[in-house]
């Protein structure tokens, strides 16, 4: 298989991510990994729900005292938009336009970093209010669930960045197309998890 072969627009396959056996394997393997990640996050959600508002003394802050709509809303909008920008990147990958793909990926990365920055601000804010990782079981569960998601975001950003830098000079090939595609799947999965976080943790937390 000549995975590094240069393609013209016309010879570039319609589904470059699964055009080689390696690509197919990567694609399927990554989806299966996401199936496992689903269970991982479900376990974290379950733990959070079991420990929500479980604090040692009644003076401590609970979910409805902590969460605020504006911040969560901003974070949600940013992450949802970054999902769309990575779809744009994959659209350009399928059309074999490498530079446009890189641009859209860069926008995705910028949005991802701003999401992270807001999350850091949020955590810092809570810590100052006395809601910390070690203050209560509720605190431990909250920071573990949301922090696991934040760690996934960080890893996804590093992944995008290293792919972009590594391939900046080399352009698209059937060797790296599956890698880009799989990274974007990961990014969507992070978004899926966030949809549940903002609904189950924040919105349901605010309703009480």
């Amino acid at each position, binding site marked *: 298989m000549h995975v590094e072969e240069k393609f013209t*627009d*016309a*010879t570039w*396959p*319609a*589904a470059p991510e*699964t055009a080689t056996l390696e690509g*197919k394997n990567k*694609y*399927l393997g990554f*989806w*299966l990994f*996401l*199936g*496992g*990640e*689903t*269970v991982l*996050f*479900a*376990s974290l*959600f*379950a*733990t959070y*729900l*079991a420990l929500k508002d479980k604090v040692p003394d009644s003076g401590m802050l609970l979910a409805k005292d902590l969460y605020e*709509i504006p911040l*969560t*809303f901003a974070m*949600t*909008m940013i992450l*949802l938009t970054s*999902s*769309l920008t990575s*779809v*744009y990147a994959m*659209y350009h990958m*399928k*059309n074999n336009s490498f530079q446009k793909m890189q641009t859209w990926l860069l926008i995705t990365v910028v949005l991802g970093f701003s999401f992270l920055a807001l999350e850091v601000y949020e955590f810092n804010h809570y810590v100052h209010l006395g809601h910390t990782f070690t203050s209560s079981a509720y605190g431990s569960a909250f920071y573990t669930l949301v922090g696991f998601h934040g760690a996934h975001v960080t890893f996804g950003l590093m992944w995008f960045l290293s792919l972009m830098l590594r391939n900046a000079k080399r352009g698209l090939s059937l060797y790296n197309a599956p890698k880009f595609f799989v990274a974007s*799947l990961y990014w*969507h*999965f992070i*978004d*899926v998890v966030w*949809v*549940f976080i*903002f*609904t*189950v943790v924040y*919105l*349901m937390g*605010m*309703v*009480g």
Partner: protein
Amino acid sequence: MTNQQSNSANPNLNLEYRRKQNAEEMKHQVITFTMMIFFTLIAFAMVAMESISRWFIIPVILLLAAIQVIFQLYYFMHMKHKGHETIALFIYSGLTVGLITVLVFLTIVWL
């Protein structure tokens, strides 16, 4: 796996068709995105209003979240394309196991 193209005699014609197909799909993606944003707005607005009963809000926002996830999976992550049967099987199995876990932790984590 997904729509395998036949490299017909005239590659440029084929190319044009594919470009059009991709653009069409991108249009669907943007519509999906718009709807997701719309659902998110509804969810946040309902919570912000504070006057609605939580027994109404919670099921509705959970339903909206489920729809959003289906959009993500089927449109953004291309699960609606052919050749994703095995993948769907495994994702749904994962969701089932996860759902049982959550259910149990909501009911029989005895203390």
